[in-house]
């Protein structure tokens, strides 16, 4: 204690204190930080090579050789296999044209080619990997929890049952009814385009699976007849006028024509 009292005004003391604080912060961070997503190391080097060839032929124009990005498109180092599987697997990439957002279209590559591209991009830097079948299995999720989570996290853009909705400047949140569970999971994990990233801290794997369980039940037959697109009162009002008033006005004209 006496030693501390004698030396605390030493001119080297602030430096020492700063070093200690830095070491302590770094140490605590290293202990607490979630383990970084690591690319699945199952990819063979042959797959990575063929992925690189495909990338050079189809993607490098915009994303640059080595996927380091250009003015036209972002760097793909560290986006992980999940992002590639989503973007290429839903046909969004390679992009057809520039516009408010890159839209889904018929898929341009077969499953092996997509896997090769994903392996190549994953080899460039660690990023989220493609989820396993178990992780996206709707049967293992709870649709009730999923609906509650969907309501607070997704419905703002994708509509209450995932029918899709509008965003600003011509962008839109697409309908989720045709999206596969794997692509749903990857979208939440990587946040494509305008979508935010829902990482493990926001939505755990189980919660993502619950959401998938809810979404995969939507878009089919609904109780009460034709769902009219599940987009709410506007389509109901439109059909009330077209079908309801249409039929009733027809009947009125028919009755009115019946004697005079």
């Amino acid at each position: 204690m006496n030693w501390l009292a004698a030396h605390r005004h030493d001119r080297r003391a602030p430096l020492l204190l700063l070093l200690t604080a830095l070491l302590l912060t770094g140490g605590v961070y290293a202990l607490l930080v979630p383990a970084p997503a690591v690319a699945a190391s199952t990819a063979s080097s042959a797959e990575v090579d063929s992925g690189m060839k495909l990338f050079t032929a189809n993607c490098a124009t915009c994303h640059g050789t080595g996927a380091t990005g250009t003015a036209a498109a972002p760097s793909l180092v560290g986006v992980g296999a999940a992002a590639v599987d989503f973007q290429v697997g839903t046909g969004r990439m390679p992009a057809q044209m520039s516009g408010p957002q890159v839209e889904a279209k018929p898929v341009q590559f077969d499953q092996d080619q997509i896997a090769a591209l994903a392996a190549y991009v994953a080899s460039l830097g660690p990023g989220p990997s493609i989820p396993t079948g178990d992780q996206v299995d709707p049967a293992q999720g709870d649709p009730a929890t999923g609906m509650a989570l969907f309501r607070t996290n997704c419905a703002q853009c994708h509509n209450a049952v995932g029918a899709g909705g509008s965003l600003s400047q011509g962008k839109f949140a697409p309908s989720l009814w045709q999206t596969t569970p794997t692509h749903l999971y990857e979208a939440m994990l990587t946040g494509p385009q305008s979508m935010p990233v829902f990482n493990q801290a926001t939505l755990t794997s189980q919660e993502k699976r619950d959401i998938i369980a809810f979404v995969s039940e939507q878009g089919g037959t609904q109780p009460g007849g034709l769902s009219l697109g599940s987009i709410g009162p506007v389509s109901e009002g439109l059909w009330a006028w077209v079908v309801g008033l249409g039929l009733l006005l027809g009947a009125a004209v028919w009755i009115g024509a019946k004697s005079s």
Partner: protein
Amino acid sequence: MTSPAAATADFLDQRTGLGAAVKEFARKVFPDHWSFLLGEIALYSFVTLLISGTFLTMFFVPSMTEVTYSGPWASLQGTRMSEAFASTLRLSFEVRGGLLMRQVHHWAALIFMASIITHMMRVFFTGAFRKPRELNWVVGFTLLILGLAAGFSGYSLPDDVLSGNGLRISDGVLRAVPIIGSYGSYFLFGGEFPGEALIPRLFTVHILLVPGLILALVGLHLFMVVLAKHTQYPGSGRTDRNVVGFPLFPIYVAKAGGFFFIVFGVIALMAATMQINPVWNYGPYDPSPVSAGSQPDWYMLFLDGALRLMPGGVEVVIANFTVPLNVLIPAMVVPGILFTALAAYPFIEAYATGDKREHHVLDRPRNRPFRTAFGVSLLVAFFVLVLAGSNDLIATHFHLSINDITWVLRFALFIAPAAAFMVTKRMCLALQRRDREIVLHGHEHGTIVRFESGEYIEVHQPLNEHERWIRVQHEPIRPLQVAPAEDSRGVRRKGYAADLRRARLSRLFYADRVEPVTPAELAASHSHGTHDELPPAPSGQELVAGGRRSLVADDRAPGDGH
């Protein structure tokens, strides 16, 4: 031998004197036209609402007490919700026929409002609101407002996310009122929004107060129709002093009775095949979530549209009180203008026309260009607001930018009604000119005849008397003119400025006009065979019947609107 039916009728007649009333009523004559059935659609859909609504009250629990759901709908298992929402789910999934009844009720509500608007359009465009029916127009207008109140209060009862968002908007509008706003909100919701008092309160409003008022006013509305007799379309033999049609019994009893079943049938058909308001998709209300595509039912959509169009940030702070014009203008001023214009129109038109006579023969819309154009421009403004309320769905379905749609509609709200007014007015005048043309020259026949001299003419077929009467029966209406400001002794006249204003309004209504062919013109066209030297229409100072003596009709020649 008397049949049991006759015996019963006799029993009632001896005690109530019902026979005379039935006899009188059964022989009452009503004119026949399909457009007179539009109001009946509203009446029958209201009856359908009462029947299905009674069923729903048997099972709906108007309470905001929180319960945990454990019914058959898997996606809501274990979710905390209000009893109101839970009982709506029970109605939908567990009560036999409950979902059908809910859908009948909701579709009937949409049809009810749509038929009210359609009926109102018929009354407006044919001038059926003129004396002696102005008061009945006001009764009908009140029914429209009550219909909106009934719809909105019922829409909010299930306590789902979608209707809760609607309530939150109403709460916001209420709070926007300076000074009393927040007090009003606390008063309405029994504390901080959403509170626990609102659903029971709305229930009373929805099943007792508003339907009771609607029922009473529907009775008054029909009574006033009987009292003033029904209007009729112009035609040979129809005047302001008679009613040409069929007796109530048996013709209209059969027609109207049958039409009830058609209306009920169409609503039931829709309810059985088309889903409406699937509250299980929206989930129980909680103030935090708002889903994409949140809109009110179509009849409230124009208010939502006005809110969506209004640029934000138009707030004025006066002595620590924020006056949020960005809410007040779209939610109060815009509907205020639309509704005031609608309610007051009969009185404004009567003032501008200077006409105090009774009218029982309807106008053909083309013969009142200003009124028709005004009605169309109101409808266009309403439609622009409805489109604005659907802007996000237009954006997704037509791949447009929601920002562009909003900007286009902001301008359209001002430009489209004005353009519609001008186009409609011009169309009316053109149709009137076409009427004149046909009356004077007859129908084009398509047959070309060559005379011996080599001249070609097209044969025109003259109109028969009925065709001609339809086109010439209406009176020309001319703008009111102002008597001089000073009387013969040079004394300034009282009320001159008011007369001046009234004459200006009258000119706005009637300066552009095409007058119907007069007998003199017709005779001239028939005798000369050429129409270049028509005598001018009779003109001169005419006192307006029943009007102020100081206002006299314009003496301009017909067709000045050319």
